[in-house]
Each structure stands twice: as C-alpha cells, then as structure tokens.
C-alpha cells in the first residue's frame, strides 16, 4: 500500500524551502516528488532595476549561509563582460573569504548531520569551533554574515596586516580540531553503519542530473570550478581536489570534512603570499556584451550570467544556485531507502534540515507522526545500531 509522507514546505533556517513528498510502501521510499518555489522572491526581475554596484547587495541576500558566493559569482560575471583586471591583492582577499566561508558552511552541515543521526555531541562540538570563525568575519568585515566584500573590480575591504595572526591562530585551532572530528566521525562504527551505503547517487546519475560540489565529488564526478576554471588566486596556490567514488552519504561527509583541510591550506598560502597594492580598480562603465561568472560555493558551482546594453543596469541577470541542480538528484538518491534514512539522504546534498521539523506522516487523513517523531525515528535507528555494536 502506498502512502505519502510530506516533508515541508516551510522551514525557518535556510534560504531554500522545499517540499518533498515521499511516496512510501511500508517503510520503503519508492518515489519522490519535489515542489519548490515557496520562497520565490523574483531576484531575476529585481536585478535589472538596480545599478551594477547595487546588485551585489541584492544577490548577497539570496542565501544566508553562503552569502559570499553569489556576489562573488556576480562580480566575476561583470568582470568577464567588461574584461576588467582585478588587482592581485583584491584577488587574494576574495579567495580567503571564499575559503573561510566554505569552512563555516561545511561545519554547519556536519553539525546538523550529527544532530540528525542522534549524535548531539558532534553537533555541539562542531558548532563550538564554527563560532570563532564568525567572530573572525566580524573582525575582518564588520559583520558575522553578509560580508559585502565583493565589488566589481576588486574588494570592498582590506584585511589589515595586524589581523593576519588572528586568522592564522584560528586556522591552527581549526586544523587540530578538524583532525579530531574527522577521526572521530570516520572511525565511529555506528556513524559508519548509519551513513555507509545510504542514499547512493551513482556516477551516471550524477552526470545526468549535472550535480555540482560535494554531491558530485562524493559520487566520483570530479568537478570543481576552482580547479577547472581557476579564477582569482586559486591557480596561484597549491591544493588538492577531494573526490570519493562511493556516492553515499558517508562519501559526501568525507568530502566536506577533508575539504576543510584544503581550505586551511589555501588560506594559509594566501596569507603568506599576500601582495601589497590597491584593492580595487576604477570601473567607469560596463560596455554592451555578456559575461559568465562562476564560483565554487560550499554546495557547488554558483552560476551567474549578465547581459549589458551599455547602461548603468544589467539587462538580464541569471542566477543559478548549486542546490537547483543538487536537489533534483534526490529523486534517484532516495529511492529504495527507509523513511528513517530518507531525511538524512535528502539533507546530504546540504539543503536544509529544519524541513524535517515540519514533517508529518498522514494516515487516512489523520496525523500519525510529527516532525519531532521523524527525528526520533532516525535516532532510534542509530540506537539500534549502537546496541548491536555493544554486544
């Protein structure tokens, strides 16, 4: 007998409210319907009504977690359109902020994943070390979020030399703690049992659905804009692309954890080689034409396309967030797994967890489970595995 488990549509924390309809037979998920658009704010309509310099502030507010990624991709697009050369110091500053943001976003995910499978210690610990990073953002840019560091032709703020040691101190702390987390999470037999072989997205499906970011790299699909189409300082530093072929939730977690080490490496090298000089070039006008900018956000490739007619506003500005591609791939990734795993699989692409708080299971029109109970369902499964390991 088929039943529908609705997950969504609204949740307060993340920028992408989705509505998943799980179609289940008993415990097993047999199909998935995805509805999006609950938070459609018409950015592509508003953007052509703003000037070139106002748009970064608009697109920054698309996403609260990766609020550096959208303006970054946008300014790259405008610079591509107008063939603007960015001064080296600005390039390094942008790269540093981009990488620090990746760390904080991945930590957010790891913490929530821990919470979801019933490891609240992981959650508290990981977020404990994410917090100083937000303070660091406040120190550098005056804001814990919405940094406004990118502008067409450069960076809006400089990183002061006296702040370098503070950043380096944090990187030391982070590297040490990240080692601990990686070992703790990857060596824990219960976490392994819970994540291994769950929500497998095969390489062929990853290519067909054109997923990006850790979702793709966890499926052996080596796509990373920073390596393939290097921009700013990414081709001037030495780092590795993390790819795992398994395609399950564990592989995606491994990609995210190990990527934090790479980010630390990149930021360290950038700080060491940071050139002196101006942080912006003067941009007088954007000539008619078109430009494409892409940035590797924590969740994958952010794509921006702008078209100019020579006026002070874009004619068309197309925005594509990585989750637009990644969420669609859930249709294949979630099939065949149990409800207790489903929410974890849906979250493995790093959309939002809060939607699970809103989950309800309906049976013949009456509510059977609340969102809290779906969490409980997941925690019970972890407990079951834990007991098996204790014996």
């Amino acid at each position, binding site marked *: 007998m088929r039943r529908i488990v609705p997950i969504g549509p609204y949740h307060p924390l993340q920028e992408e409210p989705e509505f998943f309809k799980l179609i289940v037979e008993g415990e097993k998920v047999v199909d998935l319907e995805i509805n999006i658009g609950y938070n459609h704010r018409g950015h592509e*309509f508003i953007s052509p009504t703003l000037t070139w310099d106002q748009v970064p502030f608009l697109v920054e507010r698309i996403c609260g977690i990766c609020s550096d990624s959208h303006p970054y991709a946008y300014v790259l697009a405008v610079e591509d359109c107008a063939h603007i050369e960015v001064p080296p110091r600005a390039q390094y500053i942008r790269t540093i902020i981009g990488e620090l943001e990746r760390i904080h976003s991945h930590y957010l995910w790891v913490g929530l994943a821990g919470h979801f499978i019933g490891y609240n210690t992981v959650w508290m610990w990981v977020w404990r070390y994410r917090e100083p990073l937000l303070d660091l953002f406040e120190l550098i840019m005056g804001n814990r979020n919405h940094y406004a560091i990118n502008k067409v032709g450069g960076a809006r703020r400089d990183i002061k030399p006296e702040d370098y040691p503070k950043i380096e101190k944090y990187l030391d702390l982070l590297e040490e703690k990240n080692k601990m987390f990686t070992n703790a999470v990857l060596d824990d037999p219960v976490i392994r049992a819970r994540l291994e072989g769950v929500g497998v997205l095969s390489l062929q499906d990853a290519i067909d659905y054109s997923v990006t970011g850790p979702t793709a790299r966890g499926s052996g699909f080596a796509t990373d804009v920073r390596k393939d*189409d290097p921009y700013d300082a990414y081709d001037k530093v030495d780092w590795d692309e993390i790819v795992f072929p398994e395609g399950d939730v564990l592989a995606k977690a491994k990609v995210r954890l190990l990527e934090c080490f790479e980010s630390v490496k990149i930021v360290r090298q950038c700080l060491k080689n940071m050139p002196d000089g101006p942080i912006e070039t003067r941009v007088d006008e954007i000539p008619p034409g078109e430009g494409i900018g892409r940035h590797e956000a924590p969740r994958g490739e952010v794509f921006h*396309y702008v078209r100019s007619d020579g006026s002070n506003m874009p004619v068309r500005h197309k925005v594509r967030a990585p989750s*637009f591609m990644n969420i*669609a791939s859930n249709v294949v990734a979630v099939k065949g797994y149990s409800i207790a795993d489903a929410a974890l699989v849906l979250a493995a692409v790093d959309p939002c967890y809060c939607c699970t708080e809103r989950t309800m299971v309906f049976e013949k029109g009456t509510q059977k489970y609340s969102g809290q109970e779906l969490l409980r369902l997941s925690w019970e499964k972890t407990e079951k595995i834990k007991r098996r390991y204790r014996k």
Partner: protein
Amino acid sequence: MMKKEYAKAILEEIGKKFPDATVKIHAPRRTYIKVPPKEVFALAKFLFKDKGCRFSIATGIDTREGIEIIYHFTLDEAGTYYNIKTVIPKHELKIKSLTSFLPAANWIEREIHELLGVDFTGHPNLIPLLTAETWPSDLYPLRRDYADEHKSLKTKKKA
C-alpha cells in the same frame, strides 16, 4: 591532448557538423555558439553525450527578435563554457525539449516555460515550477511587456 587543444578541437568539429552555427569567442574560456532553434537539440546532445560536457543551466531572455535561450554547457576538463544561443520567434514559441537525454534540464525548462512562455515540446511534465498556484497561466513575468505594465513596481525605490 592538451586542454586548450581539446577545447579548440570541439569548436572545429562543431563547425564541420553544424554549418549554420556562428561561433563567437568572448574570452579564452567563454564561447558562444549561435544556431537556429531546430539545431539546438542535436548540438546539445553532441556536447553532452559525445563530448562529456556538463549542463550548467539555461537562460531565457526576452529580446526584440524573439525569446532568446542560451544553454550553458561547460567542459570541466578544459574549464570552457560552450553556450548554445538560439532565438525563437515570438509567433511560434516552440523548441524541442532536452529532457529525453538530459534529466537536469527538466526544472529549468519548466522555469522558462512559466516565466517567458516558451513551449518545450516533448517535456514530460511542463507545470509551473516557481510561481504560486494562483498565478495566471498567460502572464509571463520576465517578458518586457510585463515589466512595462508594472512600471510602478519597477521604479518604486528609485525616488
């Protein structure tokens, strides 16, 4: 083969296979290929299936000549964008859907359909993606005429 040579070889092959295509190289890694609407399907399939490009997204733009659609394909090995450009005349807003070989195009075709009113023939489920359920089906918010009609909306904050 070197990255750059590979990226160039594809362009040469496109020139041979699709004589109607006009290629414009905007930057070393940004290429725009303009083709008539009927050739888009074959060219997209060639890039995606034969050359291993990744589908990034498609952009729909309302222009004077018609609705312009740009399919952004990227070759990850070379970091190069191949943008297939096509203009569909307004009196016949129809183009063949890419979903038969490219599931990733499913959502964006629904989006372009609801925002610009382009019909994708062969799409399995061409229902609105982003707009509300109550949104009228013949009102296309990204069209120029919509923006003109709602000028009050457009210029409100620029007092």
